[in-house]
């Protein structure tokens, strides 16, 4: 199968390309950008007039809800959402039920995800058994089964000795350790940022110190152990400053932010909107602004969807009883574009934060249109509006604080290994 994506503007941040060019694909591989390879005869084509052609998006956090939470979402529904969102590679956190702490579970997930129209799945293995923070998992076995890093999803390792050992052990094999920095005691019962809005609404607060104290612990242990640390879903300005300072002192640490946190803050809880119940919580406006700047200047390495489909029953309850999380796979691109346009950033810079930058964190060959790379491609119309509503969302989770809004940037086609996984050209 030979495909030609014609008349589009190719933006490939990994290779510094931003030009009008055709992309040539043969047998699932990029074989040319701008220059038609000798003897290439397309037997399929995609007209990308008025569109941007970029590498398929790489999402550092997407919950597929399998195994264990199939009533919330299935691999089929969420993979359809990924393709519709232009996401071709995704990392899934280990907080499934049971958690991804055994090679068999990881193999099963990888096997289930092996359909050609499904995004490439990169499981994050559990760092400790059952995510309980007591016993280490068989990391080497899990890595063999397909885990690319190890983490605890949103749970903490309370026992710092276990955390130290986990990081030492991971560092032995040079496995990256992904940690969410939130002190479980300071966050206990908390449902919102401990600030003006929580005070007004009478919601139990999670102070910024919950993030900074956990960060301090993780960063110090990273220094001790030399483990490769990736900090997931940073939420505060002070937290980001700590990471930047730690890097300056030689600690190897990358970090990401959830796309919601680039646009929303505590005030978006409004009158107790359960869709704005997120983990970590939406913080102050000054925090949000620092995160927006941090992603622009690269101190935050990548932005992810933090895709968390939640069923209606778990959201149509009072705010403090609502399950945290928002659906995001289909919003990652338009919300990243919105951030870029508001920050007046070049598109290439914005797209690098959802393509080559997260690919580098995952240590995978993705997020690039270089010749010889897998033909994971996203074609989108940057002008077309994407109305966010229950009908347009393919994810089984309809839970997003952006419901009812219209966002710019609509995916027209998604190719995974050269296979047209999503065709939105007619819509």
């Amino acid at each position, binding site marked *: 199968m030979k495909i030609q994506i014609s008349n589009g503007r190719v933006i490939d941040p990994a290779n510094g390309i931003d030009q009008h060019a055709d992309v040539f694909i043969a047998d699932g591989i990029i074989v040319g950008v701008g220059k038609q390879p000798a003897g290439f005869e397309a037997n399929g084509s995609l007209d990308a007039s008025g569109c941007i052609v970029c590498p398929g998006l790489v999402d550092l956090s997407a919950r597929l809800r399998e195994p264990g939470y199939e009533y919330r979402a299935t691999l089929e529904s969420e993979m359809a959402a990924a393709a519709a969102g232009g996401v071709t590679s995704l990392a899934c956190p280990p907080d499934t039920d049971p958690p991804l702490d055994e090679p068999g579970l990881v193999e099963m997930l990888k096997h289930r995800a092996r359909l050609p129209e499904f995004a490439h799945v990169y499981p994050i293995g559990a760092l400790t058994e059952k995510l309980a923070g007591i016993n280490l998992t068989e990391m080497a076995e899990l890595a063999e089964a397909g885990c690319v890093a190890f983490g605890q999803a949103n749970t903490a390792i309370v026992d710092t000795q276990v955390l130290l050992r986990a990081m030492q052990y991971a560092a032995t094999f040079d496995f990256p350790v992904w940690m969410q920095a939130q002190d479980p005691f300071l966050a206990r019962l908390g449902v919102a940022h*401990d*600030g*003006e809005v*929580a*005070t*007004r*609404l*009478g*919601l*139990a*607060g999670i*102070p910024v110190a919950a993030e900074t104290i956990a960060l301090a612990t993780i960063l110090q242990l990273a220094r001790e152990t030399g483990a490769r640390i990736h900090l997931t879903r940073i939420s505060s300005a002070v937290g980001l400053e700590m990471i930047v300072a730690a890097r300056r002192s030689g600690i190897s640490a990358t970090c990401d932010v959830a796309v919601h946190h680039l646009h929303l803050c505590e005030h978006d809880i*409004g*009158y*107790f909107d*359960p869709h704005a119940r997120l983990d970590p919580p939406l913080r102050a406006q000054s925090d949000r602004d620092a995160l927006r700047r941090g992603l622009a200047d690269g101190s935050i390495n990548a932005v992810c969807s933090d895709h968390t489909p939640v069923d209606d*029953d778990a959201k*149509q*309850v*009072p*705010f*403090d*009883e609502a399950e945290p999380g928002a659906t995001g796979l289909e919003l990652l691109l338009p919300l990243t574009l919105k951030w870029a346009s508001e920050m007046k950033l070049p598109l290439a810079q914005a797209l690098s934060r959802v393509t080559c930058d997260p690919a580098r964190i995952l240590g995978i060959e993705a997020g690039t249109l270089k010749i010889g790379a897998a033909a994971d491609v996203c074609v989108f119309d940057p002008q077309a509006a994407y109305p966010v509503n229950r009908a347009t969302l393919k994810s089984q989770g309809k839970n997003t604080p952006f419901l009812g809004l219209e966002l710019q940037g609509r995916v027209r086609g998604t190719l995974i290994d050269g296979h047209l996984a999503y065709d939105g050209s007619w819509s």
Partner: protein
Amino acid sequence: MRNPQLNSQGKLQHLLTTEGLPRDVILAILDAAAPFAEVAEREVKKLPLMRGKSIFNLFFENSTRTRTTFEIAAKRLSADVINLNINTSSAAKGETLLDTIDNLSAMQADMFVVRHASSGAPYLIAGHLAATGREHIHVVNAGDGRHAHPTQGLLDMYTIRHYKRTFTELTVAIVGDVLHSRVARSQIHALTTLGVAEIRVIAPRTLLPTDVERLGVHVFHNIDEGLQGVDVVMMLRLQNERMQGALLPSPQEYFKSYGLTPERLARAKPDAIVMHPGPMNRGVEIDSAVADGSHAVILPQVTFGIAVRMAVMSMLAGGS
């Protein structure tokens, strides 16, 4: 986003909070309550304003006092009152809050009086009723989590106006566990809207929410300083489970530092009034000599509370 307790004409649809409640609406409620207070003095205390209306008292959290006052208020307006203590019925069987609401709506409810342990629960109910085209059913928040207890806030305003005849010249002190208090929040918003000269909150740091100053109050940690020259002292109840632990070392120490004694009250204006939403913990937040003394207006608060709740219910659902 429209304030969900006002309808598109700006008329009161639900009573969910005193925050953002327009000044003229608050004053209209207080004005409407005055004749109801007089009715209570009569031999026949019943008015036909809500005859044929069904009011459901939905208490997802235990309360005897508030539920009783709502019940009396509704009965004095000739409404039919149905009391449901949900923590002992459906919720225990797994029915969701909104399922309960749907079922009771199907029984032709006209009003839900809701108490719930979660902040914002009445908003969820009001939003659900709006989304399902049942906006004719009114919701009165009878206390949600730490968020609001608007009828308590309003009856406190009624009490202050009764004794002080003004708001704009007053200095008001709120003493105690502001962090967990829905009453304090409702008082602060109402007092702010009514334009009192100064609101003070007096408490140890563990019992104050973050950035409480943003609500428009002055913070005092020393009760002797905080009570200096005030016109109104509003005491808050300290929950038993919070008297000992990481918030406070002991009830004795709390009383020593923050208990309202006659000596401390002497720092307030000579004609200061002392209020308490009840139930009181004598010897913890308030000395019996103050609770039973000449400055206390704690029992009149209870009486006024019925009149204010009658005013709220009749304004919402009493027809013209």
